[in-house]
């Protein structure tokens, strides 16, 4: 079954590793894997990720 989820305006969806505004889920992937975060939280995550690398 095709499932697409979209973040609200100004927000992002993430499964903890990948980020997007519109997510078209692959087979067997649960919507529950995704949370919505703000732009600020997204930018913070990016900085954390780059600091780790």
């Amino acid at each position, binding site marked *: 079954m*095709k499932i*697409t989820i*979209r973040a609200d305006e100004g927000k992002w*969806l993430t*499964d903890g*590793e*990948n*980020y*997007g*505004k*519109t*997510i*078209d*889920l*692959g*087979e*067997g*992937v649960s919507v529950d894997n995704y949370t919505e975060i703000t732009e600020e939280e997204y930018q913070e995550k990016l900085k954390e*990720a*780059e600091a780790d*690398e």
Partner: protein
Amino acid sequence: MSVNEKMTAIADAIRGYGGITGKLNLDDMANRIGTVYLNGYDEGNAQGKDEGRQEGYSLGFEEGKTAERSEFWEEYYTTASWAYAFYGAFWSDKNYNPHKTIKPAAGTSAAAMYQTSTITDTKVPLDLSDVSSINYIFYNAKYLKTIRGITFPESGTIASAFTGCTALENITVSGSIQISLVFTPCKLLSKASIESIINALSATTSGLTVTFSKEAVDNAFGIDIDDESTYPEGSEYYNLRYSKSNWTFSYV
């Protein structure tokens, strides 16, 4: 013209071409004819030698440069690590001249290989199938327009591989993609490139995500990702996307 005038003209010519001064009688003229020929011969010979030397030098110089350049690249290909190999603005289309596939050795890193370079075209295939990392490989390579024949590793770290890679239009993918990849900054990706990426996505993995620029996909296929009526079942993009239904597609 009288005979005397004709003889004077002949003498003048011999003096002119032979570089001779002074009065010439008939015997002198007969002897000096050889001088005229020899002077012309020597002059032609000298001029020919000089021109030949110049041309030979130019040709030799260019061939020498080419040979030295080839020798440099042959040596460079033996490098133990390709990480940071073309890092920085120094590397441009002018000095970046690889001549065959770049394939880093198994277990080595290709991290930051083209980071912040000004190269516009990778020119040769990149076989990264055995590397341990492609972190930052094209990070801020903001002039990079074409990536030829890239084979991605099956595992390893791939963080920020395409961050800042904003000019990328053409990418040809070889092999099978078995890692999540992010092409968000690549708003200019061509239709053929998006097709190449999607076609290379492994059909047997699970839990992986490919992230595209929404603008790139919308423009390439004439659709609006946020309006599913623009790519109904059976349409070109729908068929392409769902040929890899095991993958999650993310759009930014």
